């Protein structure tokens, strides 16, 4: 006996994400989901971003890791609300974790919500968090062929940030080839180049946020 189902495997998560998207729309929250391999500089980028924002900016952050509160501690220094999501062993954030984390936050007090996903170039791609845009980070120490090796996330993300540009003189990373690889997987994808230790390229990233929010 055959029973036809024709349903998305992650339809439960998708339903929750749809609910989040509705809430963000209603409360005018712009949400981005930052995805990269561990150590590409997601937290550093957010630290520099928070430092560059006026203290009155209505910004909040959720940061995911398997263990430790380290990232939340780093990000809290800027004085904006931040919450750590520790997933235990799970390699990605899902919509239910976001809903739980937002539980006691007033969304009217938030204009921009940064979600820092668990460091992983594969699994977070499959889970819709209701965000307006996924952003993928690639650092110059990782090799310019990463977009070809992990095409799913580069196809799904709206913006690619190439980070650690200050290390370019010390590593065999072909920046032009990396950008070509990004666009081979995702035609026309916008790329921003940053360094978070030398504070470089941040203006382009902040401008992207402003433009995209409108």
């Amino acid at each position: 006996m055959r029973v036809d189902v024709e349903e998305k495997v992650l339809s439960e998560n998708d339903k929750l994400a749809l609910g989040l998207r509705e809430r963000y729309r209603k409360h005018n929250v712009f949400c981005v989901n930052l995805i990269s391999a561990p150590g590409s500089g997601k937290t550093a980028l957010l630290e520099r971003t928070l430092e560059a924002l006026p203290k009155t900016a209505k910004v909040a952050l959720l940061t995911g890791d398997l263990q430790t509160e380290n990232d939340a501690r780093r990000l809290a220094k800027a004085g904006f609300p931040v919450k750590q999501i520790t997933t235990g062993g799970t390699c990605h954030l899902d919509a239910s974790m976001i809903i739980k984390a937002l539980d006691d936050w007033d969304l009217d007090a938030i204009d921009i919500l940064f979600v820092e996903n668990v460091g992983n170039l594969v699994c977070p791609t499959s889970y819709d968090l209701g965000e307006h845009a996924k952003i993928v980070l690639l650092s110059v120490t990782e090799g310019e062929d990463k977009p070809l090796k992990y095409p799913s996330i580069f196809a799904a993300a709206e913006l690619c940030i190439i980070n650690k540009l200050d290390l370019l003189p010390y590593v065999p990373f072909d920046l032009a080839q990396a950008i070509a690889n990004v666009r081979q997987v995702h035609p026309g994808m916008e790329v921003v180049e940053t360094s978070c230790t030398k504070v470089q390229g941040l203006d382009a990233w902040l401008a992207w946020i402003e433009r995209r929010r409108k």
Partner: protein
Amino acid sequence: MPDMHELSIASTILERARAASQQNGGARVTKIGLRIGEISGVEADALTFGIEALSKDTPLQGVTLDVEFCKRKQRCTACATEFEHEGFVASCPTCHGDQSECIAGKELDVKFFELEDPPCA
């Protein structure tokens, strides 16, 4: 349970299979039909491993997967030509435009369950 994401996806699929069995008088599910896209981020081998590991010593032990693999497909924004993203060729084969949207390849669907006839009352 600590996991790769195929394991949590396998667990979601097995939950659906259990529900299908319950809705059909406890009939054993023998086959699960799935559709997996090229850029869904899910590896069929890892998923198969997850299903085997999680169904061991349960009524679902021995269930097989029937996977339909979907290639990534793009539609050209300029001329609407639909083309496969073979070997990462991103430009449109008709007008050579480099803007296109993804219309297939992200699938991760349960298509069907195959069940044994329900046990007679």
